C-alpha cells in the first residue's frame, strides 16, 4: 500500500509541473506591463516618470529565466513576494485560505447533509410524491445562477426579514464567545448559496448510485439473515460511503467556481476574491501560487479518492495489493 502511495505521489509531480508551466505561459501571453501593476486604479503617469521606473527595474529577464527562478524558489518553499503590497505570498494566501476552507467545508457538509438523504429517499421510493417534488424543487434551485441566488437571499433573509446577517464574517463586531455564534450566522447565507446548485446533482447522483448499490430487497435480505442495528449499519456504511467519495469529483470544482462569485457577493475574505484581484492586477507571484495550491488540492483529492476506494470496496483492494507490492 505504501508503495502504491509513493508511486501515486511521484506521478503527481509531472502533472503539477505541467500545470504551473501552462499557467505561467498563459500569464505571459496576457498583455500587461509591470509598471501598470502598481497603479491598479489607473493613476495617470507621464511618459517621463514611467521611463524612470522602468530604468530602475532593469532590463527585465526573459520568461524562461523567470520561470526557472520561480521554480527554484518554490522548491526552497519560497513563493516570492506579492507585486501589489510586497508581502510574502505565503502570508497573503495564509490570510485568505482559512476563510475559503471554512466556507467550503461548511458548504460540503450542507451539500451532503441534504443531498445524500434525499438521494437515499428517492432511491428507496423512486417516483413517489416526495421523490418527484424534491426533483422539481432541486431543478429550480439548480438553474438559479449563484450571483442571483446570493442577491435574492440577501434581500429576503437579511434586508426584508432581518433574520440573517447580510455580508462579512461577523468577527470584527463581536467579542469573546459571541464571535463563534456571529461567525456561524454569517456563514449561513453564503453556505446555502454554494449548496443550492450542488444539491440537485448530488441528490440525483446519490439516488442513482443507491439504486444500483442497494438493489431491491438487499437490506431486507440482510435483516432476514439476522443483521440488525449497528451491524447492519456497519455492513452497508462502506457502500453508502462510495457515492460520497465519487460525488466529490463533481462537487469540488463547482465549489471552487462558485466561491469566486459567492465570496464577492458576501464580502468573504477568501481565496476567490484574492484570485480575481491578483489576475486583474497581474500579480504573478500570487496567481502562480494560487494555481499551484489549487492543483495540489485537486491532486490530493484524487489521491484521497484512489485511496478511499480500495478501503471501502474489497474488490478494488485485490487489484491494488499485488500491484503495490510489485511497485514497492
Amino acid at each position, binding site marked *: 500500500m505504501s508503495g502504491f502511495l509513493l508511486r501515486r505521489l511521484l506521478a503527481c509531480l509531472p502533472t503539477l509541473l505541467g500545470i504551473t508551466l501552462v499557467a505561467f505561459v498563459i500569464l505571459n501571453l*496576457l*498583455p*500587461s*506591463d509591470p*509598471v*501598470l501593476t*502598481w*497603479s*491598479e486604479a*489607473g*493613476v*495617470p*503617469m*507621464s*511618459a517621463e*516618470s*514611467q521611463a*524612470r*521606473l522602468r530604468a*530602475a*527595474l532593469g532590463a527585465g529577464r526573459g520568461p524562461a529565466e523567470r520561470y526557472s527562478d520561480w521554480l527554484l524558489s518554490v522548491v526552497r518553499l519560497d513563493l516570492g513576494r506579492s507585486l501589489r*503590497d*510586497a*508581502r510574502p505570498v505565503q502570508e497573503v494566501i495564509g490570510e*485568505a485560505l482559512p476563510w475559503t476552507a471554512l466556507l467550503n467545508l461548511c458548504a460540503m457538509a450542507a451539500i451532503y*447533509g*441534504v443531498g445524500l*438523504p434525499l438521494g437515499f*429517499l428517492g432511491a*428507496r*421510493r423512486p*417516483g*413517489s410524491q416526495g421523490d418527484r417534488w424534491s426533483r422539481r424543487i432541486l431543478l429550480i434551485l439548480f438553474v438559479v445562477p449563484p450571483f442571483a441566488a446570493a*442577491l435574492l437571499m440577501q*434581500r429576503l433573509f437579511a*434586508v426584508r*426579514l*432581518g*433574520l*440573517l*446577517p*447580510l*455580508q*462579512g464574517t461577523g*468577527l*470584527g463586531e*463581536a467579542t469573546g464567545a459571541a464571535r463563534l*455564534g456571529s461567525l*456561524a*450566522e454569517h456563514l*449561513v447565507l453564503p453556505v446555502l448559496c454554494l449548496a443550492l446548485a450542488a444539491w440537485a446533482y448530488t441528490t440525483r447522483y446519490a439516488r442513482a448510485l443507491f439504486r444500483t448499490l442497494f438493489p*431491491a430487497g438487499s437490506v*431486507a435480505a440482510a435483516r432476514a439473515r439476522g443483521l440488525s442495528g449497528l451491524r447492519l449499519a456497519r455492513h452497508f456504511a462502506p457502500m453508502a460511503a462510495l457515492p460520497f467519495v465519487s460525488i466529490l469529483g463533481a462537487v469540488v470544482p463547482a465549489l471552487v467556481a462558485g466561491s469566486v462569485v459567492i465570496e464577492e*457577493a*458576501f*464580502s*468573504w475574505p*477568501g481565496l476567490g476574491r484574492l484570485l480575481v*484581484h491578483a489576475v*486583474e492586477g497581474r500579480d504573478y507571484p500570487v496567481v502562480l501560487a494560487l494555481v499551484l495550491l489549487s492543483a495540489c488540492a485537486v491532486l490530493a483529492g484524487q489521491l484521497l479518492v484512489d485511496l478511499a476506494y480500495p478501503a471501502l470496496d474489497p474488490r478494488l483492494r485485490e487489484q491494488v495489493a499485488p500491484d503495490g507490492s510489485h511497485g514497492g
Partner: protein
Amino acid sequence: MTARGEPAGRGRAGRRERTSARPAAILKCAALLLLLAALPGCGRSPAPSGSSGAAGAAPTGPVRFVFPLPIEPATLNFVSGTDQSSVLVQRLVGDLLVDHDPDLHVVPRLAASWDVSADGKVLTFHLRPGVRFHDGVPCTSDDVVFTYERIMDPASKAVGRVDPFLPIEKVEAPDPATVRVTYREPYAPALRGWEIPILPAHLYRGADFAAAKENRAPVGTGPFRFVSWEAGQRIVLDANPDYWGGRPRIDGIDLRFIPSSDTALQALLTGEVDYARLQPPEWEARRTDADFQKRYREVRFVPLFYYYIAWRGDGSNPFFGDPRVRRAMTLALDREGYVRSVYHGLGRLAGSPFQGLLAGSPEPPAGPDPASAARLLDEAGWRADPKTGKRARGGVPLRFTLLVYSGGEDHVQFSQVAQQNLKALGIEMRIERLDWQTLWARLKSGRFEAALSGFMPGADPDSLYGMLHSSQIEGGQNYAAWKDPDVDAWLDAARRTLDETQRTALYRRIEARVLERQPYSYLFAPVVLAAMSRKFDGALPSPQGILGHNPGALALFPATGSPASSTSPQGR
C-alpha cells in the same frame, strides 16, 4: 416490507412503520437545519431595524462612521499606496502638506502657510507648530524632506506622485519648521504636487521601506488614529483626541471592504454601513419611499471624471488622421440620449476636456447632428454606396473596431449606442471587449483604431498635459497620438506661467484647438448619487466625494436626536 418492490405512491401504511429509523434521521437533519436558521434569528433580534450593526453593537461603544470600500488598500504606506482606497486612509491617518477644499481650491493643512519667490522658482512652506505624530514624536521639516526623498526613489513605486516633482531641483529643511523647494523653472501646478501625506521619518528610516510594519499599521499626524486592519474585512480608525485641528466629532471611521456594489447598497438598508452609492434606477425606485427618505439623506456630486473616445490619428488607419472624420464621429454620437435614458438624466455632457477645471467651458451641443456628420464624411471622401448605404473611399470600407472595458456597464452600453448611431450613417463599428489591463496595454502600444475609456483629471488644468502633449504619445496618455506644435507650446507655456489670467487664456486657446480638431470625442460624466444614514450629518459633497477633501471626515458629526448620537459621548 411490502412497499419496497411496489410502484411509487402506494403502501402508505407500510412505509410509515418500516422507515421508522430513517425519518428520524431526516428529522434530525431538518432540525439541525432549522436550528442553524433559527439560531441567528434569536441572536440578532435588533437587526430588522438595522440600527445596531453600524454603531458597533454595544450602546456605550464609539459612534463610528461605517464607510464601504470596494477595494482593499494594497498598502497603507503613505508613499507607495496610490490606489483610491489607500489614498483615502492616508488622508485620515496622515496629514497632507497642503490640501484642497470641497471646491478644489488649495488650502493649508500641515503647512500653515507658504510663499513663492519673486522669480517663481522657490516655494517655501511654513509648517504648523506643535504637531505630533500619533506616537508623540514631533513632526518637522525633516519628515517632509524624507517623504519627498522616498517618493523620488523608484524602489518606492510611488506611481503617479512623481510627476509634479520632476521639475524640482532640490528640497531643503533650513530649520525644523521650514521646507524650501527650488524648482528649475517656474512651475504653475507646483502646490498641488504637495498634496501628499507626510511619513514619520523616525519610524521608516533604516527600515525595509517596502515591508515596514507601519505599512500595515500606519502612524501619522492626522485626525484619526489607526486601530486595526482585519485582512479582507475592514480597517478601523479612531478619532485622534490630540489632533491639532481639534478632535473629530465622530468617534471613528470603520472602512468595510465590500466588493459588490449591490451588497453595499443592501448593507446600507440593513444599517451595516452608513453610506452607499446608488445607480440612477435604484435612486428613482426609492424617491417616493417615505421610510427610505426618513432614514437616509441624499448626497450628490459631479466628479471630475468623464468618458471619452480616443481616435488613433497617427496614420496607422485610413480614417482618423482626418479631423473631419473625427468631428463627424462626435456629431454622430447620441450622448444626450444616453444620459437621458440610461442615467435618467443624472449625468452631464462633457463638451471639453477642461470641463469643471476652467470656468465657462463651452456647453456641448444638445443632441447628435447626423446630417452635419454625413456632410463632413462626404467632404472627406467617405461616400455612401447608393445601394447598400455603406460608406467607403477608394474601395476601402469605413469599418473599424472600438476597444471597450468589459467590466464597466457604462462602457459597454454606450459602445452599443455608438454602434447604432454610426450604423445609421453607413459606418460599421465592431466592438472589442477587453479587461482593464489588456485595454491599457493596447492603448499604450497604439495598436488600435478607436478606444472608449474614462479619465479622471486632477483639479489643475495641467492634468490634461498627458492627454494632449505630443511628448506623451510614447508611454504617456496621449492615446490618440495627437500632435499639434501649437498646443505643445501652449501647454509648456502654461506650466511656466504663474499669472492666473494669462494661464487661463492659454488653456482657453488649447481648448478651442482641441474642440476644432477633435482628437478625442468627449462624451459625458455620470453624476454620483449616494445615500447617507441620517445618524450622521454635516457631509460636504465635492467632486471628490464626502471624504476626499478638507475638512472631509472632520465635517461629519452624529446627528442629534438619532438613537446613535444619544448614547455617544459628543465630540468637541
